[in-house]
Structures are given as structure tokens and as C-alpha cells.
């Protein structure tokens, strides 16, 4: 196990390094400069500015500096916010995004498991049909449409929650729902499929024949076995939540990373683009590692060993 972990961590570092490298060189291909007013600046000013941003150095040297900075948590200075270190921009905004992401994930997965299980238990009844149709609709509505609907009907018309902004818990509810419905629907369908599979299997028949009660069957066999493949979906959910956050944070005016990311792309703020990209990658790589470990723990068929051969 220890050996396995060590190996995985090593791979993680390699992944991040490769992503950093790819992003760095791709960013160098992007057109535009950090100066919004370049034509009005004197050559002397531009020269000095380039020196300050380190843009006068050969690309390979910039690359080396960038990678070494990265190792020390220094992601450079934002082009868009003058003198603002990217690490500060990220750290001051990550809280909102993380909270929203975690809440949406919990909301989606927990409710999804519940809805999915109910649908599976009452399969082929109206309960199942309703749950299925609802979860399909949940999956079919883009989250920005849902966000607009929630904002208009729940917040503006009914006045139950704030329209936008970021403050106490009540501000997080609508964005969490808008963000979490996707994972919810997906989880529900996944769990239902998995559980129906399990409930039709021979060992469940056996358990039933042996007189095990329904709750026991569902809890010990059906649910547990259908949760296993669900773990593999957590990675993709994370990606979906990251993408979704760009939309949701924009509509609900939440000071988060996703919103920052879109802005930095629109303003050619390379250091911030690279910083946030690295952050997203790091988060994702970490989640994937965790899910693999969890997968190994709950599914004994997959062994976590250092030597795969």
C-alpha cells in the first residue's frame, strides 16, 4: 500500500509537471500582450515592463523560472490586476468555489443515491418512472438555464433566497442546487441501473430465499455493490463542477475561481490562466488518486500494489 501510494504520488507530480509544461508553451502561442495600451507606451517603458514581467528573457529561461516559481507556490503576477500575485488571487477566491463545489457534490450524490435507490426498489412502478423522467429532465437542462429559472422564480418572484451575491449560507443554496442537479441526475440513474442489476442477480435471489429481509438485502448487497462504480464518476463530476462553476458564479455574482478564470481568458491574463489551470489540474489529480484508493478499498477485486505485474 505504501509503495503504491508513493508511486502514485510520483505520477501525480509527473502529471502536474507535464500539464504545467504544456500550458506554459501553449500560452506562449497565444496572441496579445499584457498591456492594454501598448501603442501609447514608449519603447523604454515597454522594455522595462517586459523586464519586470520577465518577458524579455528567452522562452526556455522563462519556462525554467516559471517551473521553479511553481515549486515554491509562486505563480507570478497577474497581468490584469497590477501587482497582484496570482497565488493571492487564487487563495482569496478558492474558498467560495470550494464550498460551492463540495456542497453541490454532497447535495447531488446524496440525493442522487436516495432517488436512485427508491427508483430501483420500486422499479417498474410509477415511482420509478417519475424518478427517471425527473432525473432525465435534471440532466437535460443546462445549468445556466436552471440558474436563471431559479433566480427568477425562487429568488425574484417568491423571494425565498437572495438573488445573487455571496454572504451567509442562504446565498449558497440556489447556486448549489443549480450546480448539483447534474450530478444528482447522473447519480440517480447510475444507482438505479446498478441496483436493478444487482437485485436481479442470483445471490440476491439466494439471500431472499434464505429469508433475509428487504432492508438488509438493499443495504448489504444492492446499495453497496452499486456504490462501487459510482466512485469512478467522482472525477468527472469534479470536472463538471469546475466547468459549471464558471457559469454559476457568473450568474450569481460569486467571487470564485471559475469566474476569475473566464475573466482572465478574456483579458489574456496568462499568469492567472496558468495558475488556475494548474489548480484545476491539481484538484482533479488529487480526486482521481483518492477515488482510486477508495475504489481499491471497497472493491477487493482490485488490488493496490506497487508492482502491477
Amino acid at each position, binding site marked *: 500500500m505504501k509503495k503504491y501510494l508513493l508511486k502514485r504520488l510520483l505520477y501525480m507530480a509527473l502529471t502536474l509537471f507535464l500539464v504545467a509544461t504544456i500550458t506554459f508553451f501553449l500560452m506562449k502561442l497565444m*496572441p*496579445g*500582450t499584457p*498591456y*492594454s*495600451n*501598448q*501603442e*501609447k*507606451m*514608449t*519603447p*523604454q*517603458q515597454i*522594455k*522595462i*515592463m517586459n523586464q*519586470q514581467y520577465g518577458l524579455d528573457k528567452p522562452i526556455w529561461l522563462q519556462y525554467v523560472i516559471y517551473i521553479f516559481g511553481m515549486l515554491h507556490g509562486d505563480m507570478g503576477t497577474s497581468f*490584469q*490586476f*497590477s*501587482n*497582484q500575485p496570482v497565488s*493571492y*488571487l487564487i487563495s*482569496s*477566491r478558492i474558498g467560495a468555489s470550494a464550498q460551492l463545489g463540495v456542497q453541490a457534490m454532497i447535495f447531488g450524490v446524496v440525493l442522487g443515491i436516495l432517488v436512485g435507490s427508491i427508483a430501483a426498489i420500486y422499479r417498474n412502478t410509477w415511482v420509478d418512472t417519475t424518478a427517471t423522467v425527473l432525473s432525465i429532465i435534471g440532466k437535460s437542462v443546462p445549468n445556466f438555464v436552471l440558474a*436563471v429559472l431559479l*433566480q*427568477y422564480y425562487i*429568488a*425574484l418572484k417568491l*423571494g425565498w433566497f437572495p*438573488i*445573487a*451575491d*455571496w454572504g451567509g449560507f442562504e446565498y449558497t443554496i440556489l447556486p448549489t442546487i443549480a450546480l448539483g442537479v447534474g450530478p444528482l441526475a447522473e447519480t440517480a440513474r447510475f444507482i438505479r441501473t446498478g441496483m436493478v442489476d444487482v437485485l436481479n442477480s442470483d445471490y440476491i435471489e439466494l439471500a431472499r430465499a434464505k429469508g433475509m429481509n428487504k432492508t438488509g438485502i438493499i443495504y448489504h448487497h444492492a446499495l453497496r455493490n452499486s456504490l462501487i462504480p459510482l466512485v469512478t464518476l467522482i472525477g468527472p463530476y469534479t470536472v463538471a463542477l469546475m466547468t459549471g462553476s464558471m457559469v454559476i458564479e*457568473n*450568474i*450569481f*455574482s*460569486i*467571487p470564485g475561481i471559475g*469566474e*476569475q478564470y473566464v*475573466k482572465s*481568458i*478574456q*483579458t*489574456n491574463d496568462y499568469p492567472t490562466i496558468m495558475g488556475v489551470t494548474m489548480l484545476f489540474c491539481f484538484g482533479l489529480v488529487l480526486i482521481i488518486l483518492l477515488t482510486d484508493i477508495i475504489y481499491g478499498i471497497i472493491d477487493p477485486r482490485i488490488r493496490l500494489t506497487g508492482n502491477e505485474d
Partner: protein
Amino acid sequence: MKLKKFAAAGAVVAVSALTLAACGSKSSDSSSKQVLNWDESAELPTMDLSKATDVVSFNALNNSMEGLYRLGKDSKIEPGLAKKTTVSNDGLTYTFDLRKSQWSNGQKVTAKDFVYSWQRTVDPKTGSQYAYLFDGIKNANDVMNGKKPLSALGVKAVGDYKLQVTLDKKLPYFKLLMGFAVFFPQNEKAVKQYGDKYGTASKYMVYNGPFKLTKWTGSNLSWTLAKNNKYWDKKNVKLDTINYKVNKSNSTAYNLYKTNKLDATPLSSEQAKQLKNDKEFITRRGASTFYFQYNQTKKAFQNKKIRQALSMSINREQFVKKVLGDGSTVAKGLVSSDLAKNNGKDFAADAYVKDGVSHNKTEAKKLWQEGLKEVGIDHLDINMLSDDSDKAKASTDFIQSQIESTLGDSVRVNASNVPFKTRLSRSEAGNFDMVISAWGADFADPISFLDLFTSNNSQNDGEWKNSEYDKLIQASKTTDAGNTDKRWDDLVKAEKILVQEQGIAPLYQQATAWMVKSKVKGVIYNSSGSNYNFKDAYIKE
């Protein structure tokens, strides 16, 4: 100056202005505190006035700092820190007597703070993108190019309360410049003390204006301007707080406005069309013009008839009324309307070339066929470059439709809507056939627009060249510089050539539609420069 956003005409100093029409209906909520809730469409990037480049920063600076003057309604010069101004007979030396006032940290605001601030801005090490405005102040250009030391800049402190500025050449708009944030003082101690952090959060900054900035962390989406009790004229400041909130979605902002969470919000085109009859609806016209540049390094666009045909196929009237619908008006020419006047005549009206900016289907068709024949082609694919904002997309959609349905199958327009900065770099690289560009006046003089299309100007992305045009512009700066009427005629002639020859095709002069609660009074909006001045604003329930 290039427009950062369609919604935000951030130009520097100009005269035309609109103020809030104060219609006196009473609103229901009552509170003794004077609080204004204002919508902003983008984050506040910096409070370092030497480094600010955008409207949001300039607005915050204008209200939390004070310079020699403060621009009032219609860009009228109102007293700021300058108690008395003496101008030498040759118009090249200005002496300002400063009033006694304080920074928010309790230190005195002195003439040295101005000298420090100005030197810091023109110092090439600072990398100020607005340092070019110092052009005309003695030695400014040499200092910016590192050819002369900072101390050579034509500004010096005579004692604590006397500031002397020397110019290289007469600047008719000099006083207007002094009301712009780039020329405000900075507290040396604060700059040194906060170092790299100076101006990156509300606490790393000292203020001397009507308000103090608070609750700004440098990256958040809201901040507050609170009344500054150390401000010299605090008795005339009525608002206690101005809460800014960044909403990037117009519909979110409007929903907040509807529930009284915001007192003012800008509108999208579609919202403006729906709300145009509302009593809280206002439009604010900027000193900025949108126009086409044709890439004249390409053979087809060197043909005047082709350029004319393209311009004539666009129904601009329908465009501003039905598509934009936000109060924007058809551009009379490159120079925006109400920017500059001579002998009571507006420049835009004087230089108006009707054919250059009007719709004529039959003429367009005729010219197009002739043009194609002259160039020797029977079909033209046009790559039209523009920004990716909603307004820009509506523009390209409409223009594409107009050109193709007027000129028929022999033309195909492909629109590329790209982010602002990408659009700039593609324009500079000449990577377009037609590009929709925009320009806002740097100062209230036609030259601020007309300089763009001299042969070697870096803004002349289409590389249109006309020697007569160049000569007229040159004359206005040299031989005719002292003669107001002659200079005016030169500039009028130059613009006429530009539009007649279709060096560019002016499209529209932009306006922004807003909803502002009727209880909000006394907000001063200037079409360029630091747009908003809240010093005199108040809430009347």
C-alpha cells in the same frame, strides 16, 4: 484610447456630458443614512493611479482622491486642491496655490505629493500606461524614454503649498487634464511603506478625496466608498456610503435592481428596448465612435467603390434603433458629436459627409459591381473581425446580414467574434479584412480622433494612406496651430477626406442605457474621463 468594453466608454478628458435627469418621484423606503448601491460590470483591478488603465479604477480613484480640480457637470472645472491658479502670459507656466488638506492617514497634502506622483507616473520603471498624457509637460517624453532624469520633468514644489508646472507647448485642454486621476497626488510615504502592495487592497492605500475606499480585498466582487472625514470639503459630501457590487450578468443586475438591492444598473440592448419607456430609464452617450477599418493591404479593399458599397449597404438608422436600441446614435463621422465646438458649430456637424455614412441600396449594388470589375474578381469573401460581447455579436450579425442581402451572392461575410485583447492583437497584425474598431476621445479635441488615421499611426490597422490627409493633420499641429479657425478648417477637411474616401466607415456613436432609481440625485456623469463623480450625489426619499 481603445475601448475596453462596449459598455464602458473609458476615455480620458472631454467636455460633453449628461447628468442624471432628476425627476422628483418619491420612493418608499426610508433610512436616515445616505446609502447608494451601484452596479459595476467588472472588478476593480488597481487603486494605484499610476497604473490604472480602466474605467472601474478611474471611477474609484476619482471619488476617493482629489487633484487640483474636480470635474463637475459638463466637465466644468470645479475647485479641488488648487485654491488659485496663475497662468503665465505665454501660457506655458501654471502656478497653483494649494489649500491645506489632509491624507486619510493624517499627513498633510502638499505640493511635493504632486511632484512625487507625477514623477512616479512618468518614470519608465513604473510602467504607467497613461503616462503619454503627460506629453506637452516639459521634458515628459524624454523622461519616459529614459533620456532625462525624473527631476527634469516640468513640475516643481515651491514650498509646501505652491506647485509650478512648465509646459513644452500650449495645451488648450490642460486644466481638464488636471481633473483626471492620473494627475492626482500620491503620498510618498504610503507608496514606500506598502511597496509592492500599494494600491492592491483598500487598506494599502491612503485617500484624500470625498470618500475612502473600504472592503476591497483586491480580488473581491464588492467594495464600498465611505465618506472621508478628513476631506477638506466634507460638509458638501452628502452620501455616507456607496456600495459597489460587480454583476457580470445584466439580468442578475436587473433582478437586484428590481428588488431594490441596487439603485443603478446598466442595461443590455434587449433590456433597454423593453424598458425604454420606464421613467427610471436613462441613456448616457459617450464620446466614442465605432467604425470599420478595411485592410487596405489587400487588393479588393484598396478599391474605393468596394469600400463605399460595403458602407452603403448598411442601414445604420435601423441598426441603432432596432438592433442596439440603447440610445446609441448613427455616427456623423469619426469624431463624435458634441465633442468640440468652434464658433458655435459642432465639429461632427461641420465635417458631416452624408454619403459616407448613409444607406443606399441601389447605389451600393451599382458601386459593388463596378468595384468588382475594376479589381477583376467576381466574388469576395470577407473576414469580419469584432469583439465577442453581446453588442458586438449583434453588430456583426446585423452587418453581415445587411451586406449579404444587399450585395447578393458575390459577397460572403464570415464573422470572427473574439475577446477584446485578441481582437486588438489580430488588428495590429493585419489579420482581418474588415474590423469593427472603437475609439473614445482622450481629450476634448477632434485631433484625439483624427490622429489615428495618419499614415504611420499604430492605430491605423487598415493602413489607409492619404498624403493630403497627412498634410492637413501636420498643418494643424504646426503652421496652423496658433490659429483656431484655420486649425479647425484643416481638421474638418481632413475628416471629410477620410470619410469621403472611406478610409474608414463610421458606424455609430455609442450610448449606454441605465436604470437609475429616481431617489438618486446629483450624480455627475461625464461622457469621458473618470465617468462618475459622486461628491454632490444624494438620496432623496
